[in-house]
């Protein structure tokens, strides 16, 4: 078995200087294999897939549809037709909200989400509830970021039509009890939409085991290129949904007044597809499978433990979420007394340490925890102990730089 440290050589950007990249929850880096797969597609098989009767187009179609199969396998979908390629998680969630939500949520119904959701899993449901006169209900976590059984059992009711929940919070790093929530929601007749943007890069997903009706994620957070995302949907649901974006490739017949639609998954993929993006994503998946999620989790947990241990020695630092590093999915969100998170990030950047600061596209959560803004360090398997050490060293100096004496 390869050593986890061996993979780092595949990431040119990580070897190009002395930057410590701890903003992986925003977007990951991509290995050369993924970049080469994209170029290779363009250099050998580039044509518009799905339409052509000639070799290049057939090859492009094969590569595109193979990628769909790779994705289906990766998340345990029953068939590749359940995989719809989108641009990113946000588009996937919008598709569900527009095509399923608007047709299945009515006046007086309820949509349940959590206060930890990313804006991409909030705004589309605000739109549905506004247009349909339905109620948006928020699940709230405890101090450690956990949504309790009582909490979801009291808020998911017979009036609930849709539960939309993040698998892993991009701020707390906590993994929500999605499987249990799904089981309970089903008993109440609601369908469940899972935002897997932060889980898919870090753990083995099986959508059938989770019981998710819809599952959304982005390629760019898991070594894949930008511009490609996925929506998984249960076939039965997708089949009964009306299309969202319309245009080329997603039709059967078009007359002047009307149209009939192509079969799944094409019904939901209007216009020329991003085949190179899908090919890049499939290569990213193969890369991750080669590393293996066990190794990925082990490395992330080791680094997170080091990180949190080091940070806990600085009394002016507050870490959000669980005390257990294993429950952070590599995400450590924190504040420093008296220093605004934007200043933390700017000062660290002077030392070539890259972290995020702000509301992390989760303003309702910020309001809930009473912070306008927080700082976040987020790891991936290619990060190293050495980088954690540098981070801790630089972090320990921030307050001094900000004028608080030594």
């Amino acid at each position, binding site marked *: 078995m390869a050593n986890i440290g061996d993979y780092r050589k595949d990431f040119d950007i990580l070897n190009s200087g002395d930057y410590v990249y701890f903003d992986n929850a925003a977007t990951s880096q991509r290995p050369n294999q993924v970049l080469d797969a994209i170029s290779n597609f363009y250099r050998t098989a580039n044509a518009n897939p799905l339409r052509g009767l000639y070799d290049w187009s057939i090859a492009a179609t094969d590569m595109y549809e193979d990628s769909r199969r790779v994705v289906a396998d990766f998340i345990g979908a029953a068939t590749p037709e359940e995989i719809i390629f989108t641009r990113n998680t946000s588009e996937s969630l919008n598709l569900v909200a527009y095509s399923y939500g608007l047709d299945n949520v009515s006046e007086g119904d309820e949509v349940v989400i959590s206060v930890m959701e990313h804006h991409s899993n909030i705004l589309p449901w605000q739109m549905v509830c506004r247009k349909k006169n339905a109620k948006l209900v928020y699940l709230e976590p405890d101090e450690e970021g956990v949504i309790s059984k009582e909490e979801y059992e009291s808020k998911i009711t017979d009036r609930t039509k849709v539960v939309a929940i993040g698998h892993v919070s991009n701020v707390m790093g906590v993994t929500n009890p999605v499987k249990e929530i799904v089981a309970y929601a089903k008993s109440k007749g609601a369908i469940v939409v899972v935002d897997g943007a932060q889980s898919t890069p870090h753990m083995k997903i099986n959508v059938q085991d989770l019981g998710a009706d819809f599952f959304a994620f982005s390629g760019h957070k898991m070594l894949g290129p930008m511009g490609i995302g996925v929506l998984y949907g249960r076939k039965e649901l997708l089949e009964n949904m009306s299309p969202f974006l319309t245009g080329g490739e997603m039709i059967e017949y078009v007359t002047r007044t009307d149209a009939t639609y192509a079969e799944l998954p094409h019904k939901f993929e209007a216009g020329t597809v991003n085949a190179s993006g899908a090919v890049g994503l499939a290569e990213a998946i193969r890369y991750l499978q080669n590393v293996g999620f066990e190794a990925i989790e082990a490395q992330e947990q080791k680094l997170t433990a080091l990180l949190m241990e080091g940070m806990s020695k600085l009394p002016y630092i507050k870490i959000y979420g669980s005390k257990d590093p294993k429950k952070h999915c590599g995400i450590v969100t924190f504040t420093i007394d008296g220093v*605004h998170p934007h*200043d933390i990030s*700017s000062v660290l950047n002077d030392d070539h340490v890259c972290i995020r600061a*702000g*509301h992390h596209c989760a303003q309702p959560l910020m309001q809930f925890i009473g912070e*306008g803004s927080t700082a976040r360090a987020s790891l991936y398997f290619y990060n190293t102990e050495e980088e954690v050490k540098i981070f801790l060293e630089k972090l320990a100096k921030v307050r001094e730089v900000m*004028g608080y004496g030594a």
Partner: protein
Amino acid sequence: MELKQLYREIVNEHNLRPVHKGKLENPDLVMRGINPSCGDDITLQLKVENGVITDGKYIGSGCAISQASVDMMVDQIIGKSKEDAIKLAETFMGMIKGDITDEESIESLDEAASLQDVRHMPARVKCAVLGWHTMQEMLEHPEKAVDKVEE
């Protein structure tokens, strides 16, 4: 200038020991300015007599750059005419956006000229200009301002 140096030599002083932070008695013009992306939030209060800014203070919270910038600004506009203050705001914002680079204009900003290097940090530009933008807006559109701080 390295950012750390800028903090150490200039920003911290204004952020940690601001001169003009607080509530002004009977202000003539009051306006709130917010940066949604970082949560910087200031409320600027000015006294204006015969077209001259006779006193000013601000309250609020935010990153060191936003707070220091507004503190320096107030320092500078007290005693200036409305027109001169607006002109300073334009110079400051031009400098931060990189549109104004001639030394003479920049020197007119006095201590605030030290924030010049923020122009290389696009994400911090909004922090630096928040106070200045609010001041300009308030002086150019007094009808949008109020005359006391909301509780």
